[in-house]
């Protein structure tokens, strides 16, 4: 039992003395966690002489807890400890039960084989190998999931009765309408920043009017859709993963399958479809907001009036730039939605897993959006579009 507040605490102590012609191990004081370090040192010193001991005197033993009992086990060894635990005259029943329990527990532990030590280099190699394996399975899994989504989509497309319009509308509201303020505000600000950059750099060449072209080109071709995709990846991919993942952790996905329904059709398709509609619309909003931001800076810093800004955009910027920009939106939308849903499906049971997969979904979808955008930019450049 642990030391009680009322009893006077005396630090534990052990010594080997000669008394009545016999070598006696005298154990006294409190053998508790509070005195553990001091006791451990004494035990270490006395251990080597323990074989000389003929009798153990525990009459002055104060409090004893499991930590103290462990030290007694170290000091006496299991044989002597068992003998002490069996000695009804020396110790109370509670003490003996404690010594027995600790002795048995340590015995069981010693009996079990220790786990083999591993080398650091081996660990690193193993980790690299495992990570490569995981990465490969990831890609295969993503490809499989894309295929499954497309297959389900084609199947459902032919049967209008199975279109989940309510789910689609709900997801559309959450992914498109609710995202409009943040997308518009952020792209407005970036539009203003791009215009400032253009105004500063191009003024040196006396070409500050080309700021208009810079803002229009960058937002119609790239920034409008790219910024929106990144915001949506952070906002919506994570939401998809968290929603489906918590359903998965709650066994709801299993329940859907057991009820003979299709989780792809019920959960994934409405989300993918909603984002396919939402991202082009949001990209359009982003382009307008970016242009407005640029226009405002042009008006204030360069004395380019909005009318002049717009007429220059109309005469200098071809429609194909807008089309190239907006054409990327559905591709990004599909990738973001599929990654978000797939990571949700991969959640395994715990809340921690939901968190891990949500992070992973955001990282993956931003990564893939930027990679695909870069590839598309190169492609368009080579094609002369």
């Amino acid at each position, binding site marked *: 039992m642990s030391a009680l507040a009322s009893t006077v605490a005396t630090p534990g102590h052990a010594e080997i003395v000669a008394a009545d012609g016999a070598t006696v191990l005298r154990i006294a004081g409190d053998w508790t966690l509070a005195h553990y370090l001091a006791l451990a040192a004494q035990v270490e010193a006395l251990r080597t002489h323990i074989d000389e001991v003929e009798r153990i005197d525990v009459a002055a033993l104060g409090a004893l807890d499991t*930590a103290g009992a462990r030290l007694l086990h170290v000091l006496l060894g299991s044989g002597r400890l068992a003998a002490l635990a069996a000695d009804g005259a020396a110790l109370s029943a509670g003490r003996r039960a404690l010594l027995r329990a600790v002795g048995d527990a340590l015995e069981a532990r010693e009996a079990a084989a220790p786990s083999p030590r591993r080398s650091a280099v081996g660990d690193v190699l193993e980790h690299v190998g495992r990570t490569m394996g995981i990465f490969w399975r990831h890609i295969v899994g993503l490809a499989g999931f894309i295929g499954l989504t497309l297959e389900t989509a084609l199947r459902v497309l032919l049967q209008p009765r199975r279109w989940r319009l309510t789910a689609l509308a709900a997801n559309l509201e959450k992914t498109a309408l609710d995202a409009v303020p943040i997308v518009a505000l952020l792209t407005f600000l970036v539009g203003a920043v791009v215009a400032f950059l253009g105004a500063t750099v191009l003024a040196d060449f006396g070409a500050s009017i080309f700021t208009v072209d810079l803002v229009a080109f960058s937002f119609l071709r790239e920034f409008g859709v790219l910024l929106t995709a990144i915001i949506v990846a952070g906002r919506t991919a994570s939401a998809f993963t968290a929603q489906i993942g918590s359903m998965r952790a709650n066994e709801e996905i299993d329940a859907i399958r057991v009820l003979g329904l299709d989780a792809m059709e019920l959960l994934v398709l409405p989300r993918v479809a909603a984002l396919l509609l939402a991202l082009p619309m949001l990209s359009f909003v982003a382009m307008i907001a970016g242009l407005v931001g640029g226009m405002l800076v042009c008006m204030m810093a360069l004395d380019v009036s909005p009318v002049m800004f717009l007429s220059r955009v109309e005469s200098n910027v071809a429609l194909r730039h807008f089309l190239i920009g907006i054409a990327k939106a559905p591709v990004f939308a599909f990738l973001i939605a599929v990654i978000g849903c797939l990571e949700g499906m991969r959640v395994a049971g715990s809340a921690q897993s939901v968190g891990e997969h949500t992070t992973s979904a955001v990282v993956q979808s931003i990564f893939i959006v930027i990679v695909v955008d870069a590839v598309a930019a190169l492609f368009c450049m080579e094609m002369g579009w």
Partner: protein
Amino acid sequence: MSNVIEVRGVRNQFGAQVVHDRLDLDVRRGEILSIVGGSGTGKSVLLRTIVGLNRPAAGSVRVFGEDLLTLPVARRAQIERRFGVLFQKGALFSSLTVAENVALPLLEHAGLPAAQAAELAALKIALAGLPANAGDKYPSDLSGGMVKRAALARALALDPDILFLDEPTAGLDPIGAAAFDQLILTLRDALGLTVFIVTHDLDTIYTITDRVAVLAQKRLLVNDSLEVVAATDDAWIREYFHGPRGRAAAEAARPGLAQENP
């Protein structure tokens, strides 16, 4: 027998909903006390109130003769260190291995070096009945029963005087639950613990508890030995102890009790 916990006139409420009102409870040294009551009667709230996770709106909670609610923070923390709490779902830190979970309070409070703390943690893990290799595992790799045992090992880390168990056998299979009950009994006898159990498990109540406290109507209806409680004239208690499950648990426990106390 002296009381280690004395709860007097405690009132707990969340918004307009009153959970406890003028609730009194005594826990005696060295006993295993089970708290039973229907869902929503505030069993876990009572546990949380005693261990200091929930501050009651009124009343006092005296532990080891000191009023926890009026003590300075440092003294209170000292007393709370003598509590071991097993949460319903284990509440093991998921980023640490089982051994690290158990060693954490030893490192933080007892100030032991890492090697010594690891040795003591291994002892607690063995005392809780886990195999030696369980120490290196993460909580997510453990089964429900092992999580409870690992959480028990952590609760025992600082050699507490009072062990609080919140539904210790919930979610365990009957064999695992019976083994856990026996483990608690063994530890109580060996370590001289006082054990406070919140439970729904009739088998636990019949096999290991010394006294039963029934929570109903915002108060403690009765707090006495099982025979007295079971004989209390109250509709809920009658249904609880003399319903089909209660009878089965009673019959299952009787030969067991007879063998233990010949």
